[in-house]
């Protein structure tokens, strides 16, 4: 078998390119990123007539200019990697605009097969396309396909085979003819190019690109010697064209390309006279209705939220239970050692804490796939753009932001629906301010302790403050670090389509597995670090001898128990003496029974007291041990940093552990107050201890604000790292949110103190 041939699949967004790619390769796919950019790169394989083909799914683009990363990636691949065959997927129901890209592919001059996808929709629109003639005019075989049913895929494979075997009758190179004024200039530049040393492979294409003022084209001309002359000729040519057309040279060339497309369409496309029914338009009459549009949108958002987090809660509980079971079983099986603790508590426990998010993430991605494949996603952007635009964002950014109220991890992963990298970064950066569900237990605890009357209001205020912080930061970022990179909002609203289950599952899996693969490593490392902080140093010096205390308490209890027995025996002896003359034995008398009950209840009471005292010693020991471990020392170390906010070392430790996950703040408090780590938000012990501590309601409020604003958890950090593709932005996010949290908490504490408010 000969070497694998490369097939690049190119086409507009929404043309069904991915459907064709899936139909060609089946499930044998590999998803990755294009080097250096966060644009998804999909690769698959198929074998036809004993020849292996490697298929690359290029990003969907409307053209091959260089104004977006996607276009750049697609063009670089076609020009530099020289795929053996290009499959250009074209939406037959939207031919004119789709063929614009085709003209550029023809010009590049790689072997080309054109797929007319969505033939069913074209027929519905009343379009008749003469594919034979179209193939002749475009100089490439044209294959009509209904991607949704897979009808025509085998014909496509045959055409690809015939192209590479040079037995295709249609394939021939044609030139897109421009108007004579432009052709003259193309010839001039071509002449310069052809004369020079090491001329480019495709002189005509390079000449056209030069005329289009495509700066990036110079990168392909590295080896070209006489750049000065080329530059001069190009500048003159552009001037001449712009003088004649009174427009930019690029516009003139684009007009000519569309002219070519229109010419071809006049020859091969017949439209039936009957006015076709535009089903999508009818659906949109309701879904983007002036009044109904927003409530329907809200309903869909609500459904998405409920599905992701409420439905996801069930498998989440199962995974949680499974992990706990595994950890407990392993602890029981393996003797305690550092290694077993590292593996069981650190790795399994840590990764397990993240694995519980899997159901959420997969459900969210599934819903997003439905929204994208059906076409409603574009409408969501259309409806919400007005609101999001004020933040300098695209309408679609609304979705990940709302999902942040559930959990920031899937929400940040959901920023992939945004096309521009700048929008993705901005949405990712402000996402942590959307108060996720893990922060709620902390709110309930602290608000419950200090604002029992108005807990609901305080908690609601936290959510509002989060949104305000997100809006403020969004505006700030788009005016500073992410300035001027916003793309114009020019969005296609594709026709509605019934999503196909297999493609939904494939999309969900593709995105979800990224979470498993890439995030796993970061989380694993993070979990091990956190485990080590809580595990070392192994030997801690405790201020009190807790074991002696426990022993003393046990002794006291035993002594008390003996005392009770003695007292009981004495009473019995006394009773027996009194009953000597009686007919019945003392043991069956009422008095004896009374004595027994009395003894038992006394014993029970002291047993309970004993247990409580023991537990108290144990809790105190746990608290002190924790404060001696590195994690506790870290909390004490940062005490000077949080002291200006009115916080003590306890808050310091709680905030440090809260970095792992917010809900841990509650259990940390449980340990620190010596009331046990069994921390449900109803834990009355923590509540009372908080009230009795040095904390005032004002400090409590400042603490809540801090918890709201600083980095939600390790998993979120990993997600930010993953989606921005840079530690730089991850650090920026963490530092910024810490700074914002500190400043606001400080402001609240200082102003509140000055006004003697809530103290």
């Amino acid at each position, binding site marked *: 078998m000969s070497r694998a041939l490369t097939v690049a699949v190119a086409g507009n967004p929404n043309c069904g390119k991915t459907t064709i790619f899936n139909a060609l390769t089946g499930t044998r796919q590999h998803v990755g990123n294009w080097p250096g950019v966060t644009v998804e790169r999909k690769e698959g394989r198929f074998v036809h007539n004993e020849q292996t083909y490697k298929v690359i799914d290029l990003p969907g683009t*409307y*053209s091959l*200019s260089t*104004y977006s*990363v996607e276009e750049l990636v697609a063009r670089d691949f076609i020009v530099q990697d020289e795929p053996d065959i290009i499959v250009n997927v074209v939406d037959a*129901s*939207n031919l*004119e*605009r789709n063929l*614009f890209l085709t003209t550029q592919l023809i010009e590049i001059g790689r072997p080309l097969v054109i797929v007319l996808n969505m033939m069913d929709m074209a027929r519905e*629109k009343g379009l008749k396309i003469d594919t034979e003639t179209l193939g002749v005019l475009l100089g490439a075989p044209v294959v009509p396909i209904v991607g949704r049913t897979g009808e025509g895929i085998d014909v496509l494979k045959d055409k690809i085979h015939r192209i590479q075997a040079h037995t295709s009758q249609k394939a021939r190179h044609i030139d897109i003819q421009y108007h004579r004024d432009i052709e003259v200039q193309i010839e001039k530049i071509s002449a310069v190019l052809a004369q020079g040393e090491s001329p480019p492979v495709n002189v005509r294409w390079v000449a056209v690109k030069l005329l289009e003022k495509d700066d990036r084209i110079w990168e392909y001309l590295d080896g070209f010697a006489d750049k000065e002359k080329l530059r001069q000729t190009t500048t003159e040519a552009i001037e001449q064209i712009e003088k004649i057309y009174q*427009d*930019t040279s*690029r*516009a003139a060339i*684009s*007009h000519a390309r*569309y002219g070519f497309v229109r010419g071809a369409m006049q020859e091969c496309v017949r439209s039936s006279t009957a006015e076709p029914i535009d089903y*999508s*338009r009818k659906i*949109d009459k309701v879904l*983007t*209705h*002036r*009044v109904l*549009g*927003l409530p329907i949108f809200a309903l869909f958002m609500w459904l998405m939220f409920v599905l992701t987090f409420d439905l996801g809660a069930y498998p989440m509980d199962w995974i949680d239970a499974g992990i706990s079971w595994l950890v407990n079983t392993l602890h029981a099986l393996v003797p305690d050692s550092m290694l077993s603790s590292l593996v069981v508590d650190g790795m399994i426990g840590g990764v397990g804490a993240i694995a519980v998010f899997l159901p959420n993430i997969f459900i969210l991605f599934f819903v997003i796939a439905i929204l994208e494949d059906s076409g409603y996603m*574009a409408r969501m*952007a*259309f*409806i919400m*753009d*007005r*609101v999001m*635009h004020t933040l300098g964002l695209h309408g679609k950014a609304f979705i990940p932001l709302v999902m942040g109220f559930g959990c920031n991890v899937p929400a940040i992963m959901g920023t992939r629906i945004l096309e521009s990298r*700048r929008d993705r970064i901005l949405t990712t950066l402000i996402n942590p301010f959307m108060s996720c569900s893990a922060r709620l237990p902390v709110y309930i605890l602290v608000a419950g302790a200090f604002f029992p009357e108005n807990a609901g209001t305080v908690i609601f205020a936290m959510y509002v403050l989060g949104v305000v912080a997100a809006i403020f930061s969004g505006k700030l970022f788009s005016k500073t*670090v*992410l*300035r*001027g*990179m916003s*793309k*114009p*909002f*020019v*969005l*296609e*609203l*594709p026709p509605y389509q019934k999503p196909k289950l297999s493609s939904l599952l494939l999309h969900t899996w593709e995105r979800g597995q990224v979470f498993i693969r890439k995030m796993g490593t970061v989380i694993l490392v993070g979990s091990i670090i956190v485990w080590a902080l809580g595990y070392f140093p192994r030997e801690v010096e405790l201020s009190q001898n807790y074991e002696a205390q426990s022993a003393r308490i046990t002794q006291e209890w035993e002594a008390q128990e003996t005392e009770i027995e003695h007292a009981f025996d004495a009473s019995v002896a006394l009773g027996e003496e009194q009953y000597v003359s009686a007919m019945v034995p003392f043991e069956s008398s009422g008095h004896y029974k009374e004595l027994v009950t009395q003894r038992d209840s006394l014993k029970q009471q002291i047993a309970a007291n004993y247990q409580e005292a023991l537990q108290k010693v144990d809790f105190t020991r746990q608290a002190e041990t924790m404060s001696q471990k590195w994690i506790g020392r870290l909390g004490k170390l940062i005490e000077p940093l949080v002291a200006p906010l009115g916080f003590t070392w306890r808050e310091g430790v709680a905030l440090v552990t809260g970095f792992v996950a917010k809900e841990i703040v509650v259990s940390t408090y449980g340990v620190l107050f010596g009331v046990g780590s069994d921390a449900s938000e109803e834990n009355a012990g923590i509540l009372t201890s908080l009230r009795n501590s040095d904390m005032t309601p004002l400090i409590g409020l400042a603490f809540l604000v801090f918890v709201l604003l600083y980095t939600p958890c390790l998993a979120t950090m990993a997600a930010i790292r993953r989606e921005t593709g*840079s530690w*730089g*932005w991850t650090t*920026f996010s963490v530092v910024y949110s810490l700074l914002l949290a500190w400043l606001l908490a400080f402001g609240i504490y200082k102003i509140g103190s000055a006004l003697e408010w809530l103290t």
Partner: protein
Amino acid sequence: MFSRFRNRMGNSAPRHQLTREGVRLCDLHPGEKARVLEIGGSEQFRIRLMEMGLLTNDIVEVDKYAPLMDPMELIVKGYHLSLRRMDAEKIAVELIERNE
């Protein structure tokens, strides 16, 4: 980190000022059709529209406005395209079919 970003996406290209007075695309009502006379704005915006098939001399129909009155939905070359009003303001048009 920031500078690399700006260099790639940075937009130093000149903005095209409309030479024409008169009706703008954003002035049209739903159901009205117009011919595009001139497209202004940044080079990036103009190129984006060209790629998407909105060129001078093309006929566009305003389908509707979003529930919050922005953006607007157009029908161009038989498909639906959405633009913000602030961008549509940079497109000079000539009304050819009024909506009664």
